[in-house]
């Protein structure tokens, strides 16, 4: 690790005018700056979509509430879902992939820096187009000013007759554009990982984060493209008078459902696999042990990648497929739980016998393990066709997927931010504020989403804008909404922590967590060239080898 030994004298640079700084950020092709842009962009949308969720919860707080109209309620849940998946979930994970993958494999940058910038700005344009519908979608003419077709946008709801104005067009174009951005980033990640590794970084020595992002990028190629194709068809239907999803002319609404879920289910694995990647990096460091079962982890991830491509129709059990299709998709859905279970056992195996340090990133990881396990169990329940036909379209489903996406993805993203913030900014996040954030968020999360299963079991349907009193849902809904506000307070603390620590946080140094992967070998924040000299690695934990020359990993691997 000769890169460590070299100290480069810092050149004193005069304070730049803000216009120059802005210009630098807008025109940058540096993977670290683009990664930060992705993350900031995603956090902005996290706040926007979070506010939408709060508005939804205020409306559902009491029976017969009139806080928003039914039309606005439809727009709110459409905007909330679409934003969280496409403009918060994917960008923030791409942001971390962008920032970390080149550092972890000892590369100077991504394989195609300009493609990288292009992809980011495409995604950014997608988010902008989506929210521009508030201005550009003929709201003044009573046609509705925001998409209100749900994030799944089932036909024939999207037909011109049922969605006049341009709001649905903005929805389709936003997803098409950001989809192309995602495909560009995925191509870049794959090319970077396969072609830019530093000497000695064999595939079998790559950090698990890199491996899992490779699988994620492969899945993006195969599953985001069908969404783009379906959006092209939708635009042809709406603008050129095509009949793809027009039942009047013999078209099929069910075909849209298939096309959407062929994308839609792998998508949730695209979101969760990078989170598994965070777990696989953070848990070993705070357990002071190498990851348990590295090859099995890789195999399980690849396995998830394959199996998750053939589970999509478990979103469609109530459509009326034949019993063979129902059985097939039930079986594949059960099967995808196996490699996921293997991963959870491996993380527990990593913690077992370790000297666990309960720092904030580790707290989020431990909560992730519990919550993702429960989310997986309700997933197995809903994956059974017989059970799903009882509870589909109920709040039980809403509770299930929020358990995976909030209890899983959001917790993992928080863990990642607490863990890598020192590398990105050079300063530590405040530990006390972090613990407040963690515990408030855990309490709010469980209040909201544990209880949300119950009205679902009692028969409360999804997507209703209000309900009658006296069905046993009233108190539960009130508590669910209170939980949402507790989460919002936790997020406010988190944002405050991000801002305060940026200016006043403790200096982090190169390696605050005593970690083992290459990104900690360079300074915090890393210089534009990443490593002064190209690193050479001989094991999966290059920094361990450096710190313990008497007992390097390379002897045992």
């Amino acid at each position, binding site marked *: 690790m000769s890169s460590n030994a070299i100290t480069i004298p810092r050149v004193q640079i005069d304070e730049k005018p803000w216009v120059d700084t802005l210009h630098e950020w807008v025109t940058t092709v540096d993977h670290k700056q683009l990664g930060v842009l992705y993350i900031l962009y995603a956090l902005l949308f996290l706040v926007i979509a979070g506010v939408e969720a709060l508005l939804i919860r205020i409306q559902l707080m009491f029976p017969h509430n009139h806080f928003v109209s039914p039309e606005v309620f439809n727009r709110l849940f459409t905007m909330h879902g679409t934003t969280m998946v496409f403009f918060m979930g994917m960008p923030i994970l791409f942001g971390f992939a962008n920032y970390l993958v080149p550092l972890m494999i000892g590369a100077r940058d991504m394989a195609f820096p300009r493609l990288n910038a292009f992809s980011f700005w495409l995604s950014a344009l997608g988010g902008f187009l989506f929210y521009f519908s508030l201005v550009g979608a003929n709201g003044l003419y009573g046609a509705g000013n925001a998409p209100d077709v749900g994030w799944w946008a089932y036909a024939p709801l999207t037909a011109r007759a049922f969605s006049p104005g341009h709001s649905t067009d903005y929805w389709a174009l936003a997803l098409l554009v950001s989809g192309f951005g995602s495909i560009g980033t995925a191509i870049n990640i794959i090319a970077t990982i*396969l072609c830019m590794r530093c000497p*000695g970084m064999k595939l079998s020595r790559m950090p698990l984060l890199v491996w899992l992002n490779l699988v994620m990028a492969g899945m993006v190629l195969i599953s*985001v493209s069908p969404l783009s*194709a379906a959006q092209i068809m939708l635009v042809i239907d709406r603008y050129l008078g095509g009949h793809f999803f027009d039942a009047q002319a013999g078209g099929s609404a069910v075909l849209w459902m298939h096309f959407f879920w062929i994308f839609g289910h792998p998508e949730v694995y695209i979101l969760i696999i990078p989170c598994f990647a965070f777990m696989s990096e953070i848990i070993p460091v705070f357990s002071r042990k190498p990851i348990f079962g590295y090859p099995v982890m890789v195999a399980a991830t690849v396995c998830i990648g394959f199996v998750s491509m053939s589970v999509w129709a478990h979103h469609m059990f109530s459509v009326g497929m034949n019993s063979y299709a129902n059985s097939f998709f039930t079986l594949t859905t059960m099967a995808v739980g196996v490699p996921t279970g293997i991963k959870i056992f491996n993380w527990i195996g990593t913690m077992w016998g370790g000297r666990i340090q309960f720092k904030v990133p580790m707290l989020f990881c431990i909560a992730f393990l519990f919550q993702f396990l429960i989310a997986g169990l309700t997933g197995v329940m809903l994956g059974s066709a017989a059970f799903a036909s009882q509870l589909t379209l109920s709040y039980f489903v809403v509770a299930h997927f929020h358990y995976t996406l909030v209890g899983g993805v959001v917790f993992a993203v928080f863990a990642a931010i607490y863990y890598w913030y020192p590398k990105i900014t050079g300063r530590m996040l405040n530990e006390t504020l972090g613990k407040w954030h963690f515990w408030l968020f855990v309490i709010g999360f469980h209040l909201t989403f544990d209880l949300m299963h119950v009205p679902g079991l009692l028969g409360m349907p999804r997507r209703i804008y209000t309900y009658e009193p006296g069905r046993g849902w009233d108190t539960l809904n009130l508590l669910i909404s209170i939980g949402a506000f507790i989460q919002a307070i936790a997020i406010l603390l988190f944002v405050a922590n991000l801002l305060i620590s940026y200016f006043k946080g403790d200096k982090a140094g190169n390696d605050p967590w005593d970690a083992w992967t290459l990104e900690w070998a360079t300074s915090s924040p890393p210089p534009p060239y990443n490593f002064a000299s190209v690193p050479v690695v001989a094991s999966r934990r290059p920094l361990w080898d450096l710190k313990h020359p008497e007992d390097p990993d390379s002897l045992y691997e």
Partner: protein
Amino acid sequence: MSAIANPIPQAPATWRLPDRGKVAMASLIVAESAIFTIFVVAYLFYLGKSLTGPTPREVLETPIFYTICLLSSSLTIHLAAKSLARGIGFAFLGLWLLTIALGGLFLYGTAQEWRRLIYEHGLTISTNLFGTTYYSLVGLHAFHVTAGLIMLLTVAVFGLYGRVGVKQSGHIEVLSMYWHFVDVVWVVVFTVVYVLGR
């Protein structure tokens, strides 16, 4: 323990990684294949489901000549890339221009077919399901041929100014991968639309 004197690992003697251009193009081809798969599935799913005419059997004619043009352009671009790698610039340029001509001829064939369908048979993208799926699938392919031709023409302009040499042969190979993909897609589209679909 003292056996390990030097903690800094030595760089492996041979450290070769795949070419990033080829890996990226292969990835793009995977993504494009997924897009085409969806359109092919839609075409097959809607075969015979149009509520009104015209039907494929009534109006489609198999474009054998233009298919031969496009498929042979795969051969010419392969030979062009090979001659560039060997440093025979003259042969490269000739074969490259021939590839463009063959691709252009194919596009002309598609245009003629569309003109005939629209003016003689009144089939447009909004006529029936056959029209919607046919123009989308064939149009998506024609769009890819057009994009390919633009890239080939760009290279040809540089070539005519003498700027394409052995150093660029890696890039040329990546471009030819794309062109081969467009040809393979046509084999699938041809089979689906003109053989199975009639």
